[in-house]
């Protein structure tokens, strides 16, 4: 009986022997298969959310993302909206943003791309403040804090 139990044990041990080289040699394949799983996407808290609107202005492209109100369950009451400026960036970016497309300007930004100074002017009660403003490779990303007054 004991020797019968040993056979699958040794078979599994030999399998484990090969598992390490296979894991590394087949890493690209296994990673692609794992990436298909539903939970394998980076949280919008880090990606900035999905792009919902973009338009051209003064030679640059302004992309506004969906506001991010991520929470463990449901939606948070506080979050941020990401705005990306790409293309030919001037030394001073001046832009007024209506992030929720309700026809009312929510905030305006003045960014000095040379000195990295950014100024946010709040135009709506939904907006809480500037979260981050930074150049990322060839574009500029701004995240502005907003309140979630519509979600339950």
């Amino acid at each position, binding site marked *: 009986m004991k020797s019968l139990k040993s056979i699958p044990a040794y078979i599994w041990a030999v399998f484990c022997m090969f598992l390490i080289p296979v894991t590394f040699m087949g890493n690209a394949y296994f990673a692609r298969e794992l990436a298909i799983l539903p939970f394998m996407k980076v949280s919008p808290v880090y990606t900035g959310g999905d792009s919902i609107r973009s338009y051209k202005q003064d030679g640059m492209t302004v992309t506004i993302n969906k506001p991010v109100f991520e*929470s*463990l*369950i*449901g939606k*948070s*009451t*506080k979050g941020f909206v990401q705005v990306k400026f790409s293309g030919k960036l001037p030394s001073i970016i001046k832009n007024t943003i209506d992030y929720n497309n309700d026809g009312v300007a929510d905030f305006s930004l003045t960014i000095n791309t040379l000195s990295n100074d950014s100024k946010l002017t709040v135009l709506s009660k939904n907006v809480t403040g500037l979260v981050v403003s930074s150049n990322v490779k060839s574009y500029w990303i701004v995240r502005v804090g907003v309140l979630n007054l519509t979600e*339950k």
Partner: protein
Amino acid sequence: MNFPEGILLGLSTGAICLAYCGPVIIPYLLGENKNVHTNFVYVSLFLSGRLLAYMIIGLIAGIAGTLFLQPSGFNIKLIGVSYVFLSILLIVYGFHRFKEVCLGKTQIKVTSGYFKNRPYVAPLIGGILTGLNICPPLILAVTKAASTHDIAGSILFFVMFFIGTSLYFIPLPFIGIFKRQHVLRIIGKFAAIFAGLIYLYKGLFMIIN
């Protein structure tokens, strides 16, 4: 006032309450290492503390509306102070009867007499202090309760909200299935100390900054 709305709001946000309250109550249950029945008593005491805190907040929301929720230096410092008290409770509880570590042996002489005859203190006060934490579900509940413009309605809304969130705490007492696992008790004590340190930092940061 639609009171089922309070329960529904509690149900939809209760998991967040568990995430915020978990670091307080879970180490306590592990550290006490009691059976399921006793754990139900402890969790009930914790929830009673939360209910008391929620009723206080409900009362304030009914009187002052959402005004008190506006971020102000005073509000933030008040929450910071409650965090500091919570951290002290957690750290003291963590070392209480934790004879496996030397600080625990010293502390036995100081606090064992106090806590020995008052086993309700830690979970009840932990519940109150955790309940005073302005977490996102609470902000939503306050906003809705304040819209009643009615003190009694506001308190009742909060009680309904509390019932909805409390359902998520039902599985916790079943930690007692692992009763007499000495190791879980040690882990619970360490976890209480670490949770206390986190709340201490948060509280001090809110008071100073």
